[in-house]
Structures are given as structure tokens and as C-alpha cells.
């Protein structure tokens, strides 16, 4: 197992390097001159040359990339990921500040999804073609087809404008209530609902299909034939095996857990990583943008690794 994990991490290095190269090129090839703000008549050309030298703009492209990426590896140094142009503070520090909000938002919606989607998918599969199944399937299809910004806008209108139950956005009402869990939960409700409805739609479809496949297998018929109760067959025999593919879904949702939901966070002005990244693009905050892309890549690699390891844990037939 340990050798497997180590091998996977080594295999991930070229992928992360590729992500880094693309993120570097994305910013490097963008039109615009990084020294534009200094190119005014009363700045002498020597000063511009000096600035280019300090920032390394006069070096060849590969050398600039290597300089950038070697800085990046030194995560123990708070300045390693550069300074944000907008905030004039270390990027690493800004990211660390916004991570808890995103983890809270995505973690709650993932937990809610698991709690609701598994029973829904199971119900739809056990009572296939019944009314319950039709309702769940219809809900799943519509929820799946609804873009996150449409769903978010609807929920915001219903919850915050029409019924005036929930706040319009943000994470806390005022600085005074900053660490009041009830206040945060109140602000959390709409964005979590918006994210959870979508993932419940996707997950319940998936669980229904997976459960149906298991229910048609021979050992389920055997279990029924030997007189076990329906509950025992459904929960002990079928559900456990139906949940194996769900582990993959879990791993695939981990990147979103870290990178945040860009759109939902923006709609509800949630102070997490997603809205931070989008604002950084709007303000051309290049160090933050590059950090964000790389962070997304790392999250995907970790998510896939976790999914594969968990797959082996829940399915004893898989050996590493």
C-alpha cells in the first residue's frame, strides 16, 4: 500500500509540472507589458532595464519558469508563492486565510449530499418504476440540467428577497458576530442548499444505477431465497456493494472541496477560495492566479489518489 502511494505521488509529479507550465504560459503569453505602469516619459530607459533585471523579465523563458517553480516548492517560506499585487501580502497567507470558509461550505454540502442522496438513490432503485422512483428521477434530471448560477439565483431570490428568511450573502452579519456559529450557519444555508441540490441530483442518479445493477445479481436472489428480510437484503447485501462506485464520486468531488465553487461563492459573496480566484482574474493579480491554477491541479491529483486508495479499502478484490 505504501509503495503504491509513493509510486502514485511520483507519477503525479510530471502532471503537476505540466499544470505549472500551462499556468505559467497562460500568464506569460497574455498580452500586456508587466512594466507598463513604469513606462512614462520621465522614467529613464536604464531604470526600466534595471527593473526588468530585478524581476527577471530579461531572462529567457525557460530560466524564468525554473526560477518561478523553484520558489514555488518552498512552501515552508510564507513568501514562496509571491506577493499579491492587489493586497501587497504573501499569496500563501491569503490562500490560508480563505481556505476555512471554503472547507466549511464545501464540507457541509458534501455531508448533506451523502446523507440525502444515498437514501434517495436507494429508494428509487428498490422501488423501481414506482411513484417514488419517478419523483426522484425527475428531480435528478432537472437538478442536473440546472446550471449552478440559475439555481443559486433562484434560491437567493426565494430565500433572501421573497421570504426574507436568509441573508443576501457573505459569511457573517457584522464583525461582532464573526465567530458566532449560529450566525455563520444562517449565512451558510442558501449556498449549501444551492450546491447540495445539484450534487444530490447527480449522486442519486448514480447511486440508483449502481444499486439497480447490484440488485439484479445472483447473490441477491440467493439472499432473498433463503428467507432474509427485504431490509437485510437491501442494506446488508446490496447497499454495501452498490456504494463501491460512489467512492469514485467522492474522490472526484474532493478537488471542488479545495478549489471551491467559483460560481456559487461569487453569487453568495462567500469569502472563500473560489470568489478569491475570480476576483484575482478581474484585478489581473497574476501571482494569485498562478497559485490558484496550481492549487487546483494539486487538488485533482490528491482527489484521484484518495479515490483510488478508498476504492481498494472498500473493495477487497482490488490489490495494489
Amino acid at each position, binding site marked *: 500500500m505504501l509503495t503504491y502511494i509513493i509510486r502514485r505521488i511520483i507519477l503525479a509529479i*510530471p*502532471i*503537476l509540472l*505540466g*499544470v505549472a507550465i*500551462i*499556468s505559467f504560459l*497562460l*500568464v506569460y503569453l*497574455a*498580452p*500586456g507589458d508587466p512594466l507598463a505602469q513604469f513606462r512614462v516619459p520621465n522614467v529613464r530607459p536604464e531604470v526600466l532595464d534595471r527593473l526588468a533585471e530585478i524581476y527577471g523579465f530579461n531572462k529567457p523563458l525557460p530560466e524564468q519558469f525554473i526560477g518561478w517553480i523553484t520558489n514555488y516548492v518552498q512552501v515552508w517560506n510564507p513568501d514562496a508563492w509571491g506577493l499579491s499585487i492587489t493586497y501587497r501580502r504573501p499569496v500563501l497567507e491569503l490562500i490560508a486565510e480563505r481556505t476555512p470558509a471554503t472547507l466549511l461550505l464545501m464540507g457541509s454540502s458534501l455531508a448533506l449530499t451523502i446523507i440525502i442522496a444515498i437514501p434517495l438513490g436507494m429508494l428509487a432503485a428498490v422501488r423501481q418504476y414506482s411513484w417514488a422512483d419517478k419523483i426522484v428521477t425527475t428531480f435528478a*434530471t*432537472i437538478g*442536473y*440540467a*440546472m*446550471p*449552478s*448560477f*440559475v439555481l443559486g*439565483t*433562484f434560491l*437567493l*431570490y426565494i430565500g433572501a*428577497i*421573497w421570504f426574507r428568511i436568509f441573508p443576501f450573502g457573505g459569511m457573517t452579519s457584522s464583525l461582532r458576530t464573526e465567530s458566532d456559529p449560529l450566525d455563520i450557519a444562517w449565512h451558510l444555508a442558501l449556498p449549501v442548499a444551492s450546491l447540495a441540490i445539484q450534487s444530490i441530483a447527480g449522486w442519486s442518479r448514480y447511486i440508483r444505477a449502481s444499486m439497480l445493477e447490484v440488485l439484479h445479481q445472483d447473490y441477491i436472489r440467493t439472499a432473498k431465497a433463503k428467507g432474509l428480510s427485504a431490509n437485510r437484503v437491501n442494506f446488508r447485501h446490496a447497499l454495501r456493494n452498490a456504494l463501491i462506485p460512489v467512492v469514485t464520486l467522492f474522490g472526484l468531488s474532493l*478537488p471542488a472541496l479545495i*478549489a471551491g465553487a*467559483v*460560481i456559487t461563492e*461569487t*453569487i453568495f459573496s462567500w469569502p472563500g477560495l473560489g470568489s478569491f*480566484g*475570480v476576483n484575482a*482574474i*478581474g484585478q*489581473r493579480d497574476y501571482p494569485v*492566479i498562478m497559485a*490558484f*491554477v496550481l492549487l*487546483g*491541479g494539486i487538488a*485533482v*491529483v490528491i482527489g484521484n489518489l484518495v479515490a483510488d486508495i478508498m476504492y481498494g479499502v472498500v473493495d477487497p478484490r482490488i490489490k495494489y
Partner: protein
Amino acid sequence: MADRTYDDVTQVPVDDTEDIDRTEVRSYWQLARRRFVRHRLAVIGAITLAVLIVAAAVVPLVVENATGVSISKSFAPAEIVDDEGNLVLALLGYSRTGINMFTQLMAATATSLMIGFAAVLIIVFIGVVIGAVAGYAGGWVDNVLMRVVDIALSMPGLFIIIAFVAFWGASIWTIILAIGITGWTTAARLVRAEFLSLREADYVQAARALGASPRRIILRHMLPPALAPIIVAASLGVADSVVLEAALSFLGFGIGAEQASLGTLLNVAFEYLNREPYLVLFPSIVLILIVLAANFLGDGMRDALDPRQRVEQQ
């Protein structure tokens, strides 16, 4: 032997011929069409998409000043022909600034669908080229190309698209390009998988033995059977691309109001959510319709184009 009557042609006892399938032989595409028509939701999806495409293409053309502002019309009710007898098709009435909301919606639908289809063209082109080369060549070429796919899959897609469009200037073409060059991985994987399994097929080996060039083998012998998954992926890709573009415009990084898409309309509507909430409704409905229709169409085509699915005898 008892007195059995035999069929003149086949020499099979007549009472046994009941079992013979007398359905006439039909081509692959005839069978596919028959399977597709059986798929009720897929047919509804195809019709919905067709109606939307036609309406989006025709309505802005037949109505003058389809997206223009005219303050005198502020909050005017729905009408089909205005006071001077011009065709206006203002089925949804006028907005606060006097914009004809139905024609504006159709013009936005046209922009959205245009971007969606154009982006899918790029997605399919890159996906087919990379998938075909990887699957046909195999070995280290396949290995390198699949690592490129892994890298592309590890990038935060929407974020890259936003950054690309923000840096290079928001126009229809940068948006199409951004969606196209980030979205090809699924198509490439499907084509590669199909090509890997076809590569060693007897008829492909035969073509190779007869001296056909790789170009001919790929284009004439391997691409047609790989077409089914490509078509399905393309129809799902239209939905994805339309939604991506709408997300981009919704976040304010898309094309401006001069060529509004459904996302642009939602972006504007979001600002007036408090006072004029109904503005959100129609762009949302059209967007959901496009996604549902394209998904049903894709599902239906997946079943229709799969030769293993049978058509019941009649």
C-alpha cells in the same frame, strides 16, 4: 415420415417457417433511426432544439431593432404588431428601458447556441485528432498524449477559461477558443479507446496488409465505426459549452451587452433581482431547455447508434 409440406425455395418444413424472422434487411442507419424514434424523450429533445435554433435564427431577422432600447415603450404590455403595423413579436412585453424582451431573448439564444456549436466543432476536431493519433500509433505516442490529457483534466477548467478570456479580451472568438481548447479531453479519450480496440481488428489488419496508408486506414476504416461515441459526446458537449459560456458571462467576463448571450441577460437580471425578479426567469428557462434537450438527444443517440441494441421485430 409424415406428409409435411416443404417450402419451395428454402426446403424448410412449412410449419417451421413461422419462426423465421421475415423482417426485411435494414441498414445500420435505418436501424439507428428506428431506435431513436422509439426514444420519446430524445425525440422531444431534438424537436425542442430544432425549434429553439429556428426561432433564434429567424426572430432577430424578421423584427427590426430586435435588441434596441426605446424609452417610450417602457413596461409596455405584450404585443405582436405595434401601433404602426410593424411586426414586433413582443410576446413577453417590454422591459423598463423599453427593450423587446422576446426578441432580445431569441437574439441571446442565437449567440449562446452559436458559441455552443462552434466550441463543439473545436472540441470534436482536437479530440478526434489527438484520440486517433494516440489510439492508432499506440506505444510511447499514446503514452505522451494521454499524459497531456491527464494534465488538461487536472486544470481547473472554468477558471482557466475565465482567465484566458479576461487576458485576451472578451469576444465571441476568444470565448469559443477558450471553451474549445479546454474541453476536448472526453472526446479524445472516447476516440482513443475506440481506435485501440479497432487497431487489431481483422479488417483493419487486412487493409494494412493490402498496403493502405495510415491516413486511409484512419479516415476510411477506423473513423466511421468510432463515429457513434463522437456524435453522443458532441451533443452533450453543446449543452456543456452553452452552460460554460453562460457562466462566463454571468460572472461578468463574457461579451458585453452589444451581443448579449443568455449568460449576459442573467448577469443583468441578477443586478435587478430585487426590483425586477421576472427578468431572471426566461433566460433561465431557455438555458435549462437547451441543457435538457441536448442531454436527452445525447442519451437517445447513444442507444440508437449502439448496434448491440436490438429493434423489436414487427
